């Protein structure tokens, strides 16, 4: 009976720990995705300055894998760990991006790049503040639950 209880406790701790690790990993992934988006804005800006090609092609090429734009809003795959506010920011940036002359479009790219970088810095700060916390909290909550159950 004791052995079963022990295995049960171990499972609870592992599950809670895994949950904590996943949350922590999603924090890191979000920061990484925002860095990729910020690089995509640079690529987009550079390609627009070359001129000639249509904006939808350039957007398709520049966006990181897992991120799609349908002309109105951006859709992100779950594994990118982006929040709705991030998607909203990128959607606002991409919507009607090409409807001005090159200089204005590049200016817009630069201002949104600053916003995305700001968002990325926030995400990075969250990683620094909460990455360990989430992992530790996961395991601690697992241990607490096991103790209560014991």
């Amino acid at each position: 009976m004791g052995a079963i209880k022990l295995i049960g406790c171990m499972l609870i701790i592992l599950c809670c720990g895994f949950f904590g690790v996943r949350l922590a990993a999603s924090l890191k992934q979000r920061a990484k995705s925002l860095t990729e988006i910020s690089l995509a804005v640079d690529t987009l800006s550079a390609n627009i300055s070359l001129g000639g090609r249509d904006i939808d092609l350039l957007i398709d090429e520049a966006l990181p894998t897992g991120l799609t734009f349908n002309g109105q809003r951006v859709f992100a795959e779950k594994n990118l760990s982006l929040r709705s506010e991030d998607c909203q920011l990128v959607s606002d940036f991409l919507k009607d991006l090409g409807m001005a002359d090159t200089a204005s479009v590049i200016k817009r790219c630069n201002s949104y790049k600053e916003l995305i970088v700001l968002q990325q810095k926030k995400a990075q700060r969250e990683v620094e503040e909460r990455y360990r916390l989430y992992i530790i909290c996961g395991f601690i909550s697992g241990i607490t639950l096991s103790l209560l159950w014991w």
Partner: protein
Amino acid sequence: MFYFFCLGHTLYKKGEKGTGEKVDKKQTEIFDAALYAVCERVAAALFLLPEEIKCKAQEIRLRCGKAVALTMPKGIYYITPVGGVQKDAAGCLKVDKNDLNESFRLLCRGSVYSRVEQIKNGYVSMKGGHRAGVCGVFCDGGISFVSSINYRLSRQAFGTADYLLSAYKGGGVLIAGPPGSGKTTLLRDFIRLLSSGAQGSPYRVAVVDTRGEISATFEGVSYNDLGENTDVLLGVEKGEGTELAIRTLYPHFVAFDEIGGKDELKAVLSCMGAGVSLITTAHVGAKAELMTREITRELLLSGGISTVVLLSRAEKRGEILNTYEVIKAWEQ
């Protein structure tokens, strides 16, 4: 929504009475394909038009607050919301500001930045070789507040220049006529005939196609047949392109549309001694204007043009004139 669209179309088709006129499917497809650049609301009504109308339509005009207009060979018609046409604008499908903005966005494929130069010149090239004239408030960045769009459908008509070719005796050719009289269509077919050797041996023709209207080139794909021995210089100014063509392509003929500026004329005149004949078009309302309009007068007096084709909106075939006779008549 699509269901109602299909239902409406089916009901309309059932009630439609055929005019018995022969419908060219290819021409209908050209019309339908051009609708990609028209906003959904207007495109749905245009899509429902009878095929006899579609295959003859020359222009689609959208003006803010006005009814959608179609330019046909026999005049202007207005579109009803269910895809009918009538001579009176009352009760017809009206265009609002949102329709124009949406159409402009579709026309530019959301990429105004890559078409700024065209927009500054008042037009946007379309897929299929069509051209849309855009009106609004022009500014440094292109255009703001689009007030009207005129979609000019490009249709290649084979055989329109047969009569010109049979009367042609060498030298430069000026195709003159009012807007919409078919100058570019005739020019295009004449180039094709010369280049493909319809007269005997084929000629090398260099086409300076500043706006991509002659060759109907869009994103590097040419939609019109200009013959086997034609080289097309795209996006270059006419005068500069003419010099470039003579220097590098060694053509028998240099062709371009709508001679207008003095710079173009100067470049053309400087090239005339090179043994290259010029084929061009000019906006001329009537025969008398050939010598009263400065640009055509100087062109004719330069000696570089031997044949003038004078087109009118009423007649399909143009009047072929000898330059010498035109000048003589003017001097008298």
